[in-house]
């Protein structure tokens, strides 16, 4: 009877526990991001973190009002059969002056122009005034799989001048937008017949393009591994820019050794080791070009910051460590290992760098010092949740918003920064400018929200180092495991201590020296005797 009672009570307790657990679980299951926000701590371990960005909205062709393109009543009407959805969109560009987006809608062979709310205001199927791939009906030189777009505003006429990487037509078109859906070709950049471009079999299929402030055009061509193809303002081919290096894998090194011993015939039959071409690039306001290489787990030149001479500033060989993307040791919630494939890079305000990983659908946000700020976004097989991607192709950053364009889901996801993200950005911007003390308050706000955010402690440490509160600085550097900075703080702290207590230390030293001398004298005179250790009696007699 008693045992049965016990069993009863046990049952009741266990049911109660189970209930309370389910209730607790259902309480936590509110609509959040469809992924766990994480960050890397000072040890390189992935730890949960606050979200710096949340999904604001997703924009499809419907929200973009692309049906206007097929609506005869609309002034944007192109044709009855014009697709009203994005398809395989591969690039998104934001024109700052007119606050317009330009989207390369690749599979629909058109360039879309939208306002800042992503409502369509223009559509370009092709350009006039060109002889390449002319459509018989409209007389336009049509685009075929345009994969890149870049826009400038012509200062004289105030009309947008856009460049299109017309991939299948093997050309880059420079055109001026005359109206909402007509554009006039200004120049066509085609395959250079220069000696330098050499190799007649080498194709010219531009995938991404970039124009710097001097009007020089940089083209990423997937068959060219020697860097971006550069055209001058007048359209002449001038050379290549910023080639990647060959990654030093075991196979490459082995082949380099074999080459020393091999005969010419053998060398001729060997495969050549060529670097991986980069996938995408961006230019910042100062004219630095940032490139990103999509090869799986590229450790050499995965992300580069190139100066105008084409030299990489983020060069690990100079002594600084530059790491981008997920760390190789990191295993996600699902244990399958994957390789980061960084597909796009964009430099936002305050020089903040956003990298898009095609493999995991994650956006990695860094400062100019290669400090990781946030990781957000994810890839999802079913891809029916907001904030998940199937084929993330392009990223754009405007103010507090991040736009990611998906080539399979055919939508644009807008992320907006959270309060936490705002404080981090504010602090990081101040920190970047060297205003360490002013960054104290935002860093404290950051720590309030996420005690594991180690960059905040480092920022605080720097601030206290500047204000001379070395003990506080040491404490913060210890938390963020910044050894060399801790060392500096400790050095100042020790100097201060010695300066403050110099006389005391000298007095103590003098007392000790005097005491030793006096004791020695006393020993010699036999006034005090050394306490002797007791000798053990010998065990064996000899």
């Amino acid at each position, binding site marked *: 009877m008693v045992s049965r009672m016990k069993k009863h009570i046990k049952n009741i307790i266990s049911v109660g526990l189970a209930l309370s657990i389910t209730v607790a679980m259902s309480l936590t299951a509110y609509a959040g991001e469809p992924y766990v926000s994480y960050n890397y701590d000072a040890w390189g371990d992935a730890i949960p973190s606050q979200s710096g960005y949340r999904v604001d909205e997703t924009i499809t062709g419907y929200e973009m009002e692309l049906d206007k393109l097929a609506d005869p009543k609309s002034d944007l009407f192109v044709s009855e059969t014009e697709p009203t959805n994005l398809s395989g969109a591969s690039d998104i560009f934001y024109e700052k002056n007119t606050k317009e987006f330009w989207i390369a809608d690749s599979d629909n062979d058109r360039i879309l122009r939208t306002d800042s709310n992503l409502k369509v205001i223009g559509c370009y199927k092709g350009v006039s005034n060109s002889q390449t791939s002319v459509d018989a009906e409209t007389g336009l030189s049509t685009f075929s799989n345009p994969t890149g777009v870049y826009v400038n505003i012509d200062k004289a006429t105030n009309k947008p001048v856009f460049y299109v990487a017309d991939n299948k037509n093997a050309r880059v078109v420079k055109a001026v937008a005359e109206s909402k859906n007509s554009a006039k070709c200004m120049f066509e950049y085609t395959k250079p017949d220069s000696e330098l471009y050499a190799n007649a079999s080498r194709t010219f299929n531009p995938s991404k393009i970039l124009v710097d402030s001097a009007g020089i055009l940089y083209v990423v061509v997937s068959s060219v591994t020697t860097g971006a193809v550069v055209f001058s303002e007048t359209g002449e081919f001038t050379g290549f820019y910023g080639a990647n290096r060959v990654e030093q894998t075991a196979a490459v090194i082995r082949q380099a050794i074999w080459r020393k011993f091999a005969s010419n015939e053998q060398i001729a039959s060997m495969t050549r080791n060529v670097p991986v071409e980069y996938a995408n690039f961006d230019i910042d306001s100062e004219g630095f070009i940032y490139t990103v290489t999509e090869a799986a787990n590229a450790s050499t030149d995965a992300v580069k910051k190139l100066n105008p001479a084409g030299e990489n500033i983020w060069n690990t060989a100079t002594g600084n460590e530059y790491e981008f993307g997920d760390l190789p040791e990191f295993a996600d919630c699902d244990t399958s290992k994957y390789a980061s494939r960084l597909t796009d890079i964009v430099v936002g305000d305050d020089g903040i760098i956003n990298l898009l990983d095609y493999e995991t659908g994650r956006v990695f946000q860094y400062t100019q010092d290669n400090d990781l700020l946030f990781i957000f976004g994810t890839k999802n097989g079913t891809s029916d949740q907001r904030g998940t991607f199937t084929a993330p192709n392009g990223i754009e950053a405007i103010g507090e918003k991040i736009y990611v364009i998906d080539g399979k889901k055919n939508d644009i996801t807008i992320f907006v920064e959270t309060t936490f993200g705002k404080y981090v950005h504010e602090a990081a911007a101040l920190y970047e400018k060297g205003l360490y003390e002013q960054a104290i308050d935002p860093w404290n706000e950051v720590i309030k929200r996420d005690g594991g955010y180690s960059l905040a402690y480092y920022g605080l440490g720097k601030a206290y180092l500047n204000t001379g509160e070395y003990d506080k600085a040491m404490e913060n550097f210890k938390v963020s495991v910044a050894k*060399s900075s*801790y060392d500096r703080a*400790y050095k100042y702290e*020790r100097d201060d201590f010695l300066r403050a207590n110099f006389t005391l230390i000298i007095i103590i030293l003098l007392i000790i020296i005097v005491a030793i001398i006096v004791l020695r004298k006393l020993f010699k005179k036999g006034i005090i005797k050394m306490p002797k250790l007791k000798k*053990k009696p010998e065990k064996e007699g000899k």
Partner: protein
Amino acid sequence: MYEFSELGWLKHVIFHPVEGYDDLRWKKKGSMKISMVIVLLLFVAMVVNRQLTGFQFNGSYVKIFNVVPLFVQSIVYFFTWVIANWALCTLFNGEGTIKRICIYSAYALVPYIVGTFLSVFISNFIVSDEIVWMNVIYYVGLGWSVVLMIQAIRTVHQYSFPKTLLSIVFTLVAMLVILFLLVLLISLFQQVYVFIASIYTELTYRFRG
């Protein structure tokens, strides 16, 4: 000749690397108790080195502290050394008994232990520009211990110098073999244990009904 207390003998051996061990052997001195304390201190020194080294010099992963590797690296290695050396040198005309090998080897460790403690101590008061002081103390202690260890093995077995070096090299090889067999044995016994444990659980399920 010399008359020292047990600790006095230890001091004599450490500061007279050339003839200290010969005196010790001649006088049939050396305390097992002290040598055990020294081995324990070796373990303590390793823990201290990991845990108390100044922050800017401490490269260890502080999130997890696992004492087992340190225990293996100090105490297990020491006894493997003693056993391997004894096993090998008795076959090659060595005169040392296992007790003497143990005592003499332990005495040789003292400079290393002291060096470690000292370097850990000063690491809390120096900046990384002055790291050379820490390294000097540590490596002087280590080198001194190596010299003493060679002397200890030479004396305890009454070997010539080249033969001593050779025996040390082969002792290290023998240590590897012993540790390998030990790991093998442990994993085998673990499987036996798992087997017995699973039988036990099976039986308990059956009897419980």
